[in-house]
């Protein structure tokens, strides 16, 4: 959940008695949202101050979260929520600004690329303008700069640069005393996100070696190769951070292993949900994680989540088993499911599903 708990236990208890709400602070939200959306309690509201066009398909959203927001460390991400056609959508994005900007000016930035067919990223590009309020959760993630300072190698691809922008700016501001190299892969010059900012950073922060590589300029794609890594001084002594498309991350992992960089020095963070594959109706099933019970099982065919849970020895609440009574509704925290009745495919984010009519498509995590 995106909401923060109230601190005062007695008031919280009383609020629950009076409002019948588990989180009584949200009881007045529907009224308050009308008066001032920045007072909503269900999440930390953040007002969009400015929208900056980075490339043809990437924008940076400058946000001013309500002051109660807990802040973040460079490299972390946040869940944002926004309502699109009546449906609350939650998605995770990396914070691209330095924590200093939050501490000094109360601002944070998200740099977001349009995903082809992506519901939320496209909506953000098409509908968000200065003044729009979106919801923010607390920051999380372990993609953090080593402390104390150690030599660092960043390998980024496309919009995977976003958490690294935050880290580099923080390092420059701290005058981080260790060599830092960034290998940044983009299709072409037009696709460089925050190019000016990166070049300005490199010139004022001498520890940074910046290399922007255009993969599509020549006839043959110019991908990451062994030479790129061999040029990095003291490669084996570096902490390596990977953020980019799956192909780049896998390749980088292999090349680093070949060069003897140990596993515990390689850090990667997720970058984007896998592109929606065109699956046949028969290609369903996948790894199902029942998070609260700490149970993980594989499933094949069109077994629904309720059957899968029961086969795994769990006893989730259920009723009609035909999609009527919603007794088995619970939260899906990630992954895609198909509604057996409608054939409709869910989004990848956190939402409610009815177990008895939901068939997993690929890995799914359920709060059961």
């Amino acid at each position, binding site marked *: *959940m995106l*909401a923060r708990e109230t601190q005062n236990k007695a008031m919280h208890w009383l609020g629950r*008695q*009076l409002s*019948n*709400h*588990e989180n009584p602070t*949200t*009881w*007045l*939200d*529907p*009224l308050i949202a*009308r008066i001032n959306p920045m007072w909503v309690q*269900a999440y930390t509201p953040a007002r969009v101050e400015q929208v900056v066009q980075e490339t043809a398909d990437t924008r940076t959203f400058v946000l001013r979260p309500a002051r109660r927001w807990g802040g973040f460390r460079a490299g972390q991400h946040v869940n944002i929520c926004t*309502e699109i*056609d*009546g*449906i*609350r*959508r*939650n998605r995770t994005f990396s914070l691209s600004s330095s924590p200093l900007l939050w501490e000094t000016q109360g601002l944070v930035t998200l740099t977001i690329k349009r995903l082809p067919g992506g519901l939320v990223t496209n909506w953000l590009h098409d509908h968000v303008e200065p003044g729009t309020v979106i919801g923010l959760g607390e920051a999380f993630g372990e993609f953090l700069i080593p402390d104390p300072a150690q030599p660092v190698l960043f390998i980024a691809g496309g919009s995977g640069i976003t958490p690294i922008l935050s880290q580099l700016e923080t390092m420059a501001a701290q005058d981080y005393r260790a060599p830092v190299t960034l290998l940044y892969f983009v299709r072409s010059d037009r696709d460089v996100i925050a190019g000016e900012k990166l070049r300005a950073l490199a010139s004022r922060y001498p520890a940074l070696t910046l290399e922007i590589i255009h993969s599509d300029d020549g006839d043959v794609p110019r991908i990451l190769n062994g030479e790129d890594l061999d040029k990095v001084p003291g490669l084996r002594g570096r902490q390596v951070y990977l953020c980019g498309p799956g192909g780049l991350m896998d390749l980088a992992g292999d090349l680093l292993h070949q060069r003897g960089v140990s596993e515990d020095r390689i850090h990667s963070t997720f970058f984007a949900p896998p592109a929606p594959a065109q699956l046949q109706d028969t290609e369903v099933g996948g790894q199902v994680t029942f998070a609260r019970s700490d149970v993980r099982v594989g499933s094949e065919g069109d077994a629904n989540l309720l059957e899968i849970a029961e086969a795994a020895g769990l006893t989730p*609440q259920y*009723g*009609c088993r*035909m999609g*009527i*009574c*919603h*007794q088995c*509704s*619970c939260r899906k925290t990630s992954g895609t499911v198909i509604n057996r009745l*409608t054939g409709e495919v869910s989004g990848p984010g*956190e*939402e*409610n599903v*009815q177990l008895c009519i939901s068939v997993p498509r690929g890995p799914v995590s359920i709060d059961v």
Partner: protein
Amino acid sequence: MKKLNETQLQELEQDLNAIRDEVLADLGERDAQYIRRIIRLHRTLEIGGRVLMPFGFIPPLFVAATASLGIAKILENMEIGHNVMHGQYDWMNDPDLHSQTYEWDTVCTGDSWRRTHNYEHHTYTNVIGKDRDYGYAVLRLSDEEQWKPRHSLQFINYILLSVLFQWGVGLHELESEKLHRREIRWRDKLPFLKEFARKGGRQAFKDYIFFPLLTLPVAPIVLAGNVGANLIRNLWSSTVIFCGHFTQDAETFSEEECEGESKGHWYLRQLTGSSNFTGGRWLHILSGHLSYQIEHHVFPDLPAHRYPEISEKVQAVCRKHGIHYNTGSFAKQYGTVLNRIFRYSLPDGIRARLEGGEAPQAI
């Protein structure tokens, strides 16, 4: 019950599914705005009622405050709580409107309601012996239950049940009739009783202790107003709910005819076992759109404010399949409910003579 063969039942299922799919495909902004508007109205009325109540020593303000709080409770129970808990707004993905975690402003816990109402009543609608909502184990309303002397006073029981409706609903899952017949033991019901005491205690604390004490000098007035508001809600919700299944033509079913039934048969049972009443827009809203009980029973998880919009289509499906669509004015439908409660309180012989027909075979 109207008999349809398997092919006809399949066709019925497809016809009704088509209506459902059309609404599902159209869910969005409008539905979210509707329920939020009702929630805003509820919050405003509840706060207004609570703030005004201490000034209840001025009679018109007492009436206004009590009505305001009573209507707030009605809106919260009928149009928000009942409908949210059916999963009508789960698709909005708003944690505050999630069917499985919603808790409402009445004695019955959300969990108990979800078990007894969403599952038992909506799955086994009007199946005598399976649907414990049919007569609430207090009233005899069908020939399938044999007359016993205690039934002769059931009209008094009905009035008591209406006045204390939230407590009756709260205790429904106790299954007192099964305890009485020793089919279950008190020990089995301890977890339920604990939950009941917790929630009942919470509701009584709020309305009968906390708010009166908060305004100590006028505590009796606040207490009286809060009792009044709960009473208004109790009488209204009981009346609406009784109009849903206990009207003249609402049918009942036996366990045998429902064994291993198809979805089409389930649909047929919902159509013939439920009854609507007509009225203005606010009558529908205050009834939580249970005035469209037929539509509600066929599509319990479609947002209720959609029922008036799809009613024409449901009626067309009923006409096509020759199924009686049971509706009438609120007064007429409620009249048949009172009549039914009264008639079934009489021994079969007397009732038959009153109705001028043959006494039905005792079961």
